[in-house]
């Protein structure tokens, strides 16, 4: 859903900084961007456009969380 995968990340953090909704974070061990909060992705593609190595794949699909009585 939404942002799908990152392949060939060089850890420059451009995507992390550019994401308006804080979906991406730098993995402290691998020093690469990882998709941590995909549910908040607004599918605006800024991360992909800022990525210097064209590493990000985004799908237009997004599922909404199930409706529950509290959460």
């Amino acid at each position, binding site marked *: 859903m939404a942002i*799908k*995968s990152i*392949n*060939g*990340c*060089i*850890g*420059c953090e*451009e995507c992390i900084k550019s994401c308006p909704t804080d979906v991406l974070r730098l993995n402290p061990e691998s*020093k*690469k961007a990882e998709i941590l909060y995909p549910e908040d992705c607004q599918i605006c593609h800024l991360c992909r*456009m*800022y990525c*210097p*190595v*064209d*590493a990000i*794949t985004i799908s237009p699909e997004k599922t909404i969380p199930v409706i529950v009585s509290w959460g």
Partner: protein
Amino acid sequence: MKKNHYIFKLTAIALAFIGMPILLYFQGDFPKRDVLMDTLSLVTILGFTLLLSQFFSTRLNKNLVKKIRMINVLNIHKFIGYLFISILLLHPFFIIIPKFFDNGVTPSDAFIKIITTFSSTGVILGLIAYTAMLVLLITSFFRFKIHLKYKTWRNLHGYLTLLFVITATWHVINIGRHSNISFSIYYLLMVTSGIYYLLKTYLFKTSKK
């Protein structure tokens, strides 16, 4: 019979260094891009695996030398070397090709960003490997102009290769767009057998002759 044997040998090398990566490439769950970028990716991968195959197309490969004469082995080695080193020298530029077709980050900005991301182990390793590869290329091309004794040259060539192969493989596994577990295992297997092959001759060359 003899002829069949070396064809078999060459086929084995081709399978291991061309067939295998192609198989892994299509087996892996990698996001597809356009034909141009996917082709360039595959060419880059093959460039790297065929450079790994160089371990087995040298005079170290006595069996092969016996079968198809040294001059031919050398020609294969040279051909693969020059061609695929050129490809790998270009691969950092392949990466920024999409930037020529959009209005966002300029190709030069993207390139500078790539080679200055020093926080990344993969990038550092890549830069070392790239330099080693460049030196390998130059010292091979001008082998007779740099006036080194053959032994010295071969040692230089061998150790540079070692440096290149280790840093490059690590680089590939670390930040390769098409790096997954299967590819990593494959690379490690190929590299260890190659290095073993090389060291066997370099360090214990007296033991066998």
